[in-house]
């Protein structure tokens, strides 16, 4: 069964002017239909204002659609009595780690979600330990979050969601405020969740490097899904991505430019290793041709 399904979801903000009169509506999400299978790693890509964060908030029932329906694990998010079950099924990690950590000690923060769910004390401890180990933060369990780096804080936030045993985790630009090392740390932890724990991951980002490992990528623009496909399919359309104001990884761009100059490279190269291999092959090919 699909873990997340949206059908023609539209969300409209009503804008007010300074006197509080309605100025007009802004459609942040426009007619989006998705169907995501349990256990997948999904990336949602888009530049600022593309509606990706608004869409993310629908998955956790923080927002409910103006039109259309969102089902999380078969539950309709507009049903009020299901709201806590939905939030437990689809956990959410936000952008700013400082604004989502509630505990003054790492382990207390991770225990916050299970406490809210009414889990017995012993099981909370067990879940906290498991979750902190899963993100590699167990040795910091007694630390104050204030003394951790951005990447570590964000891993604590992920552990906090994981302790609720969700089937699906939505990460709303979890790396936007981190340095490159912190970004790598967080992405590694997220991938481990997906590979090892089998949690469905929906990663919202505007960093292209982070979507390389996704099973399926949705590119959003102006509230609509503009592109959809595997990372390779997406990255082979360099011109279209540029149109959508998205950066292509350097290596993909280099391969694309070389291809345009007539070097016979395959489409949608994603990693440096892949590029090196392809180039090697091209070299061999041209030398045998030359003989």
């Amino acid at each position, binding site marked *: 069964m699909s873990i997340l399904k949206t059908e023609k979801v539209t969300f409209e903000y009503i804008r007010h002017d300074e006197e509080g009169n309605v100025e007009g509506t802004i459609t942040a999400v426009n007619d989006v239909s998705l169907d995501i299978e349990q256990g997948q790693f999904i990336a949602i890509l888009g530049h600022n204002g593309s509606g990706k964060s608004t869409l993310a908030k629908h998955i956790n029932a*923080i927002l409910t659609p103006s039109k259309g329906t969102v089902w999380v694990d078969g539950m309709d998010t507009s049903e009020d009595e299901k709201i806590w079950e939905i939030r437990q099924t689809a956990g959410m990690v*936000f952008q700013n780690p400082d604004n989502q950590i*509630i505990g003054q*000690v790492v382990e207390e923060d991770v225990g916050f979600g299970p406490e809210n769910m009414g889990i017995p*004390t012993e099981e909370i*401890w067990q879940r906290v330990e498991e979750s902190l180990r899963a993100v590699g933060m167990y040795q910091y369990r007694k630390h104050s979050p204030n003394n951790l780096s951005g990447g570590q804080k964000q891993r604590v936030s992920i552990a906090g969601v994981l302790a*609720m045993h969700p089937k699906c985790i939505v990460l709303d630009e979890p790396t936007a405020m981190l340095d490159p090392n912190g970004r790598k740390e967080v992405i590694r932890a997220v991938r481990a969740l997906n590979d090892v724990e089998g949690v469905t991951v929906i990663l919202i980002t505007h960093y292209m490097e982070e979507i390389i490992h996704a099973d399926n990528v949705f590119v959003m623009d102006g509230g609509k899904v503009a592109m959809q496909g595997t990372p390779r399919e997406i990255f082979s359309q360099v011109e279209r991505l540029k149109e959508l104001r998205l950066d292509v990884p350097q290596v993909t761009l280099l391969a694309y430019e070389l291809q345009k100059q007539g070097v016979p490279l395959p489409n949608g190269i994603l990693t440096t290793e892949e590029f090196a291999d392809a180039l090697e092959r091209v070299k061999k090919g041209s030398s045998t041709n030359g003989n």
Partner: protein
Amino acid sequence: MLRDITLGQYYQTESVIHRLDARVKLAGTLIFIVSLFFFKNYWGYLVAALFLAGVIKLSRVPFKFMVKGMKAIVFLVIITVLFSLFLTPGEALVSLGKLTITKEGLNTAITTTIRLSMLIIGSSIMTLTTTPNNLTDAMEKSMRPLKKLHVPVHEIAMMMSIALRFIPILLEETDKIMKAQIARGADFESGNLLKRAKAMVPLLVPLFISAFRRANDLAMAMEARCYRGGDGRTKMKPLIYQKRDHLAYVCLLVYFVAAVVIGRLHF
């Protein structure tokens, strides 16, 4: 510079005091503060100081660390001292123009200084050795009877714990905004008090805006993690009295009786 304020901050280490039930520490702090106001002679303060020194030693929090947090309050102490020094009527000791220092004034000044600093150190021991979550849990549990009177006990406790959690974050932010303003020529250091207070306005406005934004984000994050008030919540660290807690209550009682008796003796 602002990060030096240690009031309301937790100091991570292993000690007997850290392990005590937060309710004991809460009661202990209250008892200690109350005892300070019973004393009629300086011997009482000596007993209190000895007790405090013992607790500090047991808590294994470096004394330097505590004193660092006191710097922020020195100003308050000085004002109180000046007021009581010059404005208490009684037997004149020294006259400086219109101002007179009285014997009673001097006496009050000394006792207030001692009282205030002990009060602050005493309560900072509680916050230094207890995580805010624990502390608010203790308050919530001790105030539970008030819930029958429709006092939102859980909500108050939650608000306090969040406020405490955000103190260091907002201090850091203030520091950042201050530096940004200084870099663009703002002057927080010179001028008279009024001028300096005016200089704070461009600091407070962005700080408030960011605090509201953070509050909004946090509320959303809490809801996303299924927070729906105190009902039906379980505790990761439930408060259960241990043997050492009962022992600590006995120690507190002994201290209180001894200190008050000694502090009220007439020599």
